[in-house]
């Protein structure tokens, strides 16, 4: 086995202490900022995972005392659940795939030296850090974190007396999310301007890697949806502190206390509309970059062009547009005009079309490819698998009559953990294994550990979240901390809950393998050389000093280039225009 030797240039790369200094610096360099986002998300995901472990343990073992935490009361469970959801949705899946890998790679992939507004980029990062710190603070203030879930439905979230966490903790949540919105908006502006203005010569829109397309569409979604969330939390804050009643109806009684509101006609539904107008695009913000990564890696490791590149682009765009028209599917049981229910249900089913197009194109790309089974490919295939499994329950939940039963049960928990949680995380893993050399001085992660990590995570993910469908079908409510002492039909589900917890522990343990591999490879990983995966895109191209990058090829030119004198089975985007594939090579 040939070990790539380190060239003199590589020796000069920063070592681990250098990385720490890099992460704590106020740099305006896009790669550093990408890394900083990545580590922010890493901290968030570890915390979110720890919280999920506590929740899972508590469900089957309520008497368990966890050191430092003491007794877990129902409201503690709900507070942890809220923080788990918030950390995972905002600080992991809206941060790492977009801001993390986007910053790391977007300029490199389009042949720009920097983002369009480097200083603004640094500001977005540190604003996100501030938002993160404020969010964590909510765990430590008196009363603890809010308990109304990451969706924070009023009236409970608007009323201090409703729960212990609804005092300062809730305010910190609101402030943190507002700051997060602001940071994300700045980031999105930067991504859009960079993609539109700083592409290298020859990098036409239809030559952009699908990763770039996915960051581009995601940025548009952020721009259009986070502003709405900002408006929504502003009104919520006003209801809490300035005596307005945007969301507060008359005649509220909470915990036996009558809540006086100045005006009678406020509507909790208003929040739901505003929140889900943001919330549904948000799930695409979480998953679109993962789709981009998957398309990219599937093509690279099948040594084939992306099947129907244009269809991939257009399906992403149509998912982006349709994503704004379906928010009502979260509100079927909230009370809505039946005609709207019909419309939202139908439009939701329509989204299955572009999603199906993407899935079929991934499979089409794999089909007949000369597949290289590397860890990044395994995780990409895992992504497709989870996306299908989670995606199939989407159209089920989109049936208003079915949703009436399944709403607020574990079925929903299963659905979104499959399609958003696990699929999103799988794409992140794939990206980490694949672009590790770009993050840490041309080093690669270990493949054997990678495979162990993949199989444990893949089996763990299914074993943890698939049974939750059955819990939901049996009517087990979501956001529910106590099984003992509850209704009999729920108590009967304890064995299944125990099974899930055991597998959740396996799933979480698997991540230790990843962490070990990750930190070990930072110092000891094999050197990758310039282009370890025989990839085509510009981040792997090494121009000679002073040489300008000019793009001459599409992003996924794999095939037979012998006739034009190349021994390789791919051309890089910046390769000479005279390299063309063999006309007899008929693979798509």
């Amino acid at each position, binding site marked *: 086995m040939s070990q790539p030797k380190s060239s003199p240039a590589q020796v000069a790369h920063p070592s681990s202490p250098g990385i720490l200094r890099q992460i704590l610096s106020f740099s305006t360099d896009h790669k550093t900022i990408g890394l900083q986002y990545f580590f922010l998300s890493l901290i968030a995901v570890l915390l979110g995972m720890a919280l999920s472990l506590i929740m899972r343990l508590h469900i089957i073992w309520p008497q368990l005392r966890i050191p430092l935490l003491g007794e877990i009361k129902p409201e503690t469970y709900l507070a942890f659940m809220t923080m788990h959801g918030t950390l995972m949705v905002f600080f992991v899946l809206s941060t790492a795939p977009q801001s993390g890998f986007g910053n790391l790679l977007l300029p490199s992939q389009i*042949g720009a030296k920097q983002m369009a507004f480097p200083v603004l980029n640094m500001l977005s990062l540190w604003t996100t850090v501030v938002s993160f710190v404020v969010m964590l603070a909510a765990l430590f203030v008196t009363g603890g974190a809010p308990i109304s879930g990451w969706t924070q439905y009023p009236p409970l979230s608007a009323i201090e007396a409703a729960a212990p966490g609804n005092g300062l903790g809730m305010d910190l949540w609101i402030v943190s999310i507002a700051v997060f919105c602001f940071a994300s908006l700045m980031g999105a502006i930067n991504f859009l301007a960079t993609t539109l203005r700083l592409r290298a010569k020859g990098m036409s829109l239809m030559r952009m890697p699908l990763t770039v397309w996915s960051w581009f569409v995601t940025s548009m979604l952020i721009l259009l949806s986070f502003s709405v969330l900002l408006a929504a939390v502003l009104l919520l804050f006003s209801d809490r502190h300035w005596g307005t009643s945007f969301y507060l109806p008359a005649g509220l009684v909470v915990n036996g206390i009558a809540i006086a509101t100045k005006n009678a*006609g406020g509507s909790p539904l208003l929040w739901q509309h505003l929140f889900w107008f943001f919330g549904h695009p948000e799930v695409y913000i979480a998953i679109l970059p993962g789709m981009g990564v998957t398309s990219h890696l599937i093509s690279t490791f099948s040594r084939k062009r992306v099947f129907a590149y244009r269809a991939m682009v257009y399906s992403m765009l149509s998912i982006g547009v349709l994503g704004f028209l379906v928010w009502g599917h979260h509100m079927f049981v909230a009370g809505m005009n039946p005609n709207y229910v019909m419309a939202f249900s139908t439009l939701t089913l329509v989204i299955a079309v572009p999603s199906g197009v993407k899935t079929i194109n991934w499979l089409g790309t794999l089909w007949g490819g000369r597949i290289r089974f590397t860890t990044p490919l395994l995780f990409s295939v895992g992504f497709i698998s989870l996306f299908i499994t989670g995606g199939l329950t989407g159209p089920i939940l989109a049936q208003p009559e079915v949703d009436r039963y399944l709403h607020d049960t574990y079925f929903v928990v299963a659905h979104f953990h499959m399609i958003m949680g696990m699929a999103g995380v799988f794409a992140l893993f794939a990206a980490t294994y694949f672009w590790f050399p770009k993050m840490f001085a041309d080093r690669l992660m270990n493949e054997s550990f990678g495979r162990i990590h993949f199989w444990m995570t893949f089996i763990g993910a299914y074993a943890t979240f698939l049974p939750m469908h059955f819990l939901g079908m049996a009517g087990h409510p979501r956001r529910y901390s106590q099984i003992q002492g509850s209704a009999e039909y729920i108590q009967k589900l304890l064995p299944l809950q125990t099974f899930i917890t055991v597998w959740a522990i396996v799933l979480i343990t698997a991540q230790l393998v990843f962490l070990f591999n990750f930190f070990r490879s930072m110092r000891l990983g094999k050197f990758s050389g310039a282009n370890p995966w025989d990839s085509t895109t510009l981040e792997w191209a090494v121009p000679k000093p002073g040489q300008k*990058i000019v793009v001459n090829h599409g992003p996924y030119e794999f095939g037979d280039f012998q006739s034009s004198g190349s021994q390789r089975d791919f051309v890089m985007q910046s390769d000479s225009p005279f390299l063309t594939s063999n006309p007899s090579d008929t693979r798509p």
Partner: protein
Amino acid sequence: MSKSSSTISHGTKEAEPKLGGRGPSVPPIVGWGGDDWDNRPQGRRGPRERLHRYRLGIGLALVSIFIIFIALTSAYIVRMGTGHVDTITGDYIVDWKPLTLPGILWVNTILLIVSSVSMEFARRQVFREPLVTEEWLGMGTPTRTASLPWLGTTLVLGSAFLIGQVFAWRELYSRGVFLATNPSSSFFFMLTGAHAIHLTGGMVALMWAATVGIMARPLETRQIATDVSAWYWHAMGALWVYIFILLRFVR
């Protein structure tokens, strides 16, 4: 493992990684006097490259700002028409009370529109061909002297608008109308308050443009500062007109 090592081997084969394959590289395209802006792929792509980039940035920021107000508007319109059923009498009650706007808002509106005009003058001055040419020829910085007074005027008018808004709020207070009084007043204060905050941001941008001008920074920087704050200012003016029409005519 054999598979992974074969994927990695590419890096070893090419000890010194090259751009491009075996084919000849693209011949350089040489333009006249280095002004072939098209061939500067990674750097500048023309004298206005930076300006256009900043314009795009501010345009996108404005999109997101407008969406905040669209969200508030839709809430406004829905709230206006909804009521609740009184649990005791069974009556359907719509509690929205139309708000009579303070008259001073008309004055403020005119002030803001005029300020937009003066801002446009400031913006045009930094791009005026004869003045820019003089600067290129090293004959002083005439665009500054031409644009700074207009910038100052805009700042004064903008401050007058903000002070006028404060007067409008005070008038409502004196009528006993506060943020929480009625849904209509809640929305009034939310919309006008959010607009005032955004306009204050515009004032900061104007001061930045003025500072850049006073400090005689390079022409391009002055052009960008003035141009970008001008577009932001116009948008805030338009936004105000929209809010005013909404509050005045959709009650």
